[in-house]
């Protein structure tokens, strides 16, 4: 299965990005790593060019909330029906209610949302989600 991954927005957490890349490969995924500082449009375009099954966006500095708001709009511009949209990392910044984060990102259009969840647990749940599909 093909996964497009990378760190969204003005975020340079390259070590986390590399760990995600390695972990995905270890689990047998074909990984297209766009690296750090990636815009949402580039993620979507990479999914189209590679015909990927999963888009896994990570964010460590909490900016994802701002960068991913247009996901639904972009999803409407192409047929992404078979693609799983996943986001994980540290998704909030400042004074925020962690409980509200998951539904907020689900409303943006993500199928799987992991805020401050261990990487391996997140990937286990991704695999379970893909299998259930």
């Amino acid at each position, binding site marked *: 299965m093909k996964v497009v991954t990378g760190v969204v927005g003005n975020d340079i957490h390259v070590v986390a990005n590399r760990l995600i890349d390695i972990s995905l490969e270890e689990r047998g995924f074909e990984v*297209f790593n*766009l690296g750090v*500082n990636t815009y949402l*449009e*580039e993620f*979507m*375009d*990479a999914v*189209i*060019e*590679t*015909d990927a099954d999963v888009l896994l966006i990570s964010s460590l500095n909490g900016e994802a909330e701002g960068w991913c708001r247009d996901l639904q709009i972009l999803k409407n*511009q*192409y047929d992404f029906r078979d693609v799983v949209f996943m986001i994980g990392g540290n998704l909030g910044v400042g004074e925020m209610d962690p409980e509200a984060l998951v539904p907020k990102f689900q409303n943006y259009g993500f199928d799987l949302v992991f805020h401050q969840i261990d990487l391996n647990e997140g990937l286990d749940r991704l695999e379970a989600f893909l299998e259930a599909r």
Partner: protein
Amino acid sequence: MNKLYIDIGSTYFKVAQNGVIDQYFRDFNKNILDDLSSKCADVISRYDKKDIYICSSANGGLSTLIIGLTNSFSLKYAINIAFNSGINIIDTVLYPKIESEPVPSEMIDVVIVVGGIDSVEKVFDEKLLAYLEKVKYQNIVYVGTQKNRDFLEKNLENAVILENIISNDLKICEEGLKKYLTDLYQADIVGKEDIKQLYEITDNQIFSTPYIVNRSLPQINERLDVANPFIVVDIGGATTDIHYSRDLVNDNILTESGYDRLVFKKLGVYKSRESLVHTAKNNEFVYELLEHLNVTENILEEQSEKATRILMQLAIFLVLYKVSKHHGDYVELNLDILNSIVLTGGITKVLNQEEVDDIILFFYKKILHFHHAPVILLDRNYEIWTYGIKE
């Protein structure tokens, strides 16, 4: 025996021998070879055909229509390769929206179709064929996913199939398409009587000047006092080209030479003067700039030497503005970290160092809020193209 280098521009031609460059204003009542012969037949006769090298930007270049799957990869990569191959006129169509895209009315020299890495199937279908049926084109080249080649080959007569310009890890592969476009330019020259005749004086391939300038950039700091990152701004009679170090761009392309080219086809000071004036009048900073230069906007309507000088200063300002972060066009250069600006083309024959320094410092102060500007060099002898043609 030394070699003779000739550059045929839209307004001047330049002849270089033994490190000395002479320039001649074109006589548009004569064809190029007759004009060249009338001005420097003696020089040409002293050289063997195999020792004469010619580049030209005078035949207008090829018009291109690129049909690509996404903006961030297929279209971006193909545009980059086309510009670096010396192509000036580029239209694009985003394939997912092809059914609502307008069809160009004029004849297109080459259509480029691109999309998908090699493992992706069924990217292009009948929608592409339906669109292409309405387009008037002479050549078509496919540089997309391998798995769609059969469909293109079966349905598009004369389609040239080349290696995918998008690698399996989403990087750019430029060589195949770049060579094809450069060869096509050559074939285009052969088809144009004016340039074709130049083969009477040379045995060597005639290249496009922008391609030659781009080729010269990796060695430019061995010959001129420039520091990376730098840009070369070639403001000519018909178009304005910018060649820039890739260090100035923050995106996903990594090309072999490390230098890319961008063209503003309507910012020349001679053949496209009207559109330059139009662009200037629509720029919010231009009136402040005119005030800084102690002139009014009426100067833009005048046909005087002073008006030409002002127009050239405006052209420098507009080009920098169009690649700055204040203008979200095709490319955004990080001008904050720029170390050198090299100006070449007809502009260096008219403006002096002080006038150029003044306008660039105005740009840096006004737009970027800096107190100083990069080091500015004027390539007064049009030397840059000779570095590339000697390769």
